[in-house]
C-alpha cells in the first residue's frame, strides 16, 4: 500500500471518527435538552426509549442470560450463523452470474435468447418475499440454511451477470486489435484482457449483492420457528424493549457491523486484486 493510500485511509478514519463523535453529541445533547424542556416529540428523551450511548456499549459486555457469555459474543455467534447462510448462496450466485456474463459476451444469440429471462427473474422482489420463501421451504422440509442460500444466490446472480457483461465489453478497441494481432484465441483474449478489465465492475456488483444477501438472510429468519440468528434475536429484543431497551440497540449495532464486515472483506479483496495494481493511465 503506497504512502498516499495510507494517508487517505487515515484521513477517512479520522473523518468517520469525527462523525461518530458528532453523532454521540447529537444523541446525548438531544436527551439533555429535550428532558430539560420537557418535550416529547419526535422521540421521547427518557432512558427507556433513548438509552444513553454508554449504557448501550456497556450492555455489549454483559451476559445475555444469567451467568452466560457476554452479549457481544452471543450476538457475534448469531451474526456468523446468519452470515454463513448468506455467504454460500452469495458465492454460488456470483459464479452463476459470472458464467452468464461470459456466455453472453461470447454468443450474441445466447444473450438475446436468455437475457429477457434473466431480467424477468428480477421482477420478483425476492427480498420482499424472503420470509415467505423460507416458510415455503420449511413446509417442503428444505433446511433453512439452504433456502436462505438460494435467496442470496438469487439476489447475487443478476447484478454480477449484468456487470460482468458490461465489464467484458469495456476494453478499448485498440486493446482488442492488439490481441487480434497476436492471433490470440478467443479464450486467451477473454482471460488475458477482458476478464481483468471486467474485475472492477464485477467487484462493484459483488459489494451490492453482499449487502443485499445479508439483508436477505436476516429477513429470512423472521418467520416463526427459526432461532439462533440475528433476525430472530432482533425480534426477540424488540419484544423485550420495555424491560431492556439497550439490548435491542446493541443487537442492531452488531447487525450493522456484520453487514459492514461482509462488504468490507470484499472491498479488501478488491483492493488487493484490483485497485492496488492499477490507476487510470492518463
Amino acid at each position, binding site marked *: 500500500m503506497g504512502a498516499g493510500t495510507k494517508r487517505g485511509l487515515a484521513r477517512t478514519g479520522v473523518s468517520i471518527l469525527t462523525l461518530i463523535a458528532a453523532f454521540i453529541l447529537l444523541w446525548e445533547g438531544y436527551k439533555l435538552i429535550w428532558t430539560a424542556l420537557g418535550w416529547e416529540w419526535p422521540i421521547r428523551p427518557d432512558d427507556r426509549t433513548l438509552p444513553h450511548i454508554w449504557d448501550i456499549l456497556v450492555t455489549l459486555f454483559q451476559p445475555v442470560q444469567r451467568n452466560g457469555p457476554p452479549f457481544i459474543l452471543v450476538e457475534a455467534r448469531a451474526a456468523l450463523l446468519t452470515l454463513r447462510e448468506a455467504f454460500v448462496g452469495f458465492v454460488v450466485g456470483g459464479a452463476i452470474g459470472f458464467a452468464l456474463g461470459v456466455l453472453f459476451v461470447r454468443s450474441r444469440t445466447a444473450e438475446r435468447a436468455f437475457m429477457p429471462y434473466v431480467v424477468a427473474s428480477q421482477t420478483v422482489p425476492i427480498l*420482499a*418475499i424472503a420470509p415467505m420463501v423460507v416458510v415455503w421451504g420449511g413446509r417442503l422440509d428444505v433446511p433453512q440454511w439452504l433456502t436462505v442460500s438460494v435467496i442470496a444466490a438469487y439476489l447475487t446472480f443478476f447484478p454480477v451477470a449484468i456487470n460482468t457483461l458490461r465489464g467484458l465489453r469495456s476494453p478499448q478497441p485498440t486493446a482488442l486489435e492488439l490481441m487480434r494481432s497476436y492471433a490470440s484465441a478467443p479464450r486467451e483474449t477473454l482471460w488475458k484482457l477482458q476478464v481483468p478489465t471486467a474485475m472492477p465492475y464485477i467487484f462493484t456488483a459483488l459489494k451490492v449483492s453482499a449487502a443485499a444477501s445479508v439483508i436477505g438472510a436476516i429477513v429470512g429468519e423472521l418467520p416463526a420457528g427459526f432461532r439462533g440468528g440475528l433476525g430472530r434475536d432482533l425480534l426477540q429484543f424488540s419484544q423485550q424493549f420495555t424491560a431492556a431497551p439497550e439490548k435491542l440497540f446493541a443487537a442492531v449495532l452488531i447487525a450493522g457491523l456484520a453487514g459492514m464486515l461482509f462488504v468490507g472483506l470484499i472491498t479488501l479483496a478488491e483492493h488487493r486484486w484490483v485497485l492496488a495494481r492499477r490507476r487510470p493511465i492518463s
Partner: protein
Amino acid sequence: MTERDEVIAETAATDVFAAFEGDLPAAKRWWSPRDLGRQYLPALIAFLLVILTWEALTRLLAVETFVLPKPSEVMASFFETASVIWAAGMRTLLEAVGGFTIGVTLAVITSLAAARWVGFREGMLPFAIAANATPIVALAPIFNNWFSITSPVSKMAVVAVVVYFPVMINTTRGLLEVEPAELELMRSLAATPAEVTRRVRVPRALPFFFASLKVASALSLIAAIVAEYFGGPQDVLGQYIINRANLFQFPDAWAAILVASILGIVFYLLILGAERVLMPWHVSLRASD
C-alpha cells in the same frame, strides 16, 4: 473505471429496468410503440412463456398448492381478495412514498452541502458508503418502538434511511463530476460558488440523481414491506403476506406480492416520466452505454 462507470455499475446492479432500458434510443423524447415493443417484447414473451409453462406443469403433474401454487390460483385469489390487498397496498405505498420523499429531500440537501464543503464531504461520503453496506432494515424494530408499531411513521423512517444513502452518494458524485475546464471557465467569469453549483454542477448531476432515484423507488417499496415484517398493523402488505404465508395460504400471499410488484412498476414509471420531462437533453446513465 471512472466515477461515471462506477455509478452505472452500482445502479445497474440493483435497477432491473435500467438494464432493461438499455437499448432504447436516447435522443427521442417519447418512445414510439415500435421502440418500446422491440425493447420489451422479448422479455414480455419470456415472462408469459414462463407463466404458461408453470400453469401447464403444475396441472399436469398435479402439484400440491403448498409446493407450488398455480398461476390460476394466484389470479383467482388476486380478484377475490382485491379490496383487502389493494387497501393494504395503499397503506404500504404511503409508507414507501413518504419515506422516499423524506429520504430524497435530506439526501439532496446533504449532497449540495457535501459538494460545497470538502471537509463535510470527506466525513460524510465514506460514512455513507459504509452505512450503505449495513442491513439498514435492522433499524425497523427500533423505529417500531420509537414511533409506535402501528404507525406508518415507523416504516417511513426505515424507508427514508434506506433511500437516503444511495441517493446521497450518487448525487454527490454527480455534483462533483465536472470537467476542470468548466471550473476554470466559471472562475474566469468570476462566478460565485452558488452560481457554479447552479449552472454547472446541478445539470451535470441530474443523470446521476435520476439513476439513483430509480433505484430508490424500487428500494422504498421493498424496504417498506420488509420493515413491516418486523411488526406492524394487520392491514399492511408485509404483515398480510407473512400472515398468509404462516398459514400456508400461498396463493393469497402471491396475490399480495403481485400488488406490490405492480405498485413498484408504477412508482418506477412515474420517476421515469419525471426524468423525461425534467431532462430535455436526455443524457441518462444506462447500463448499455
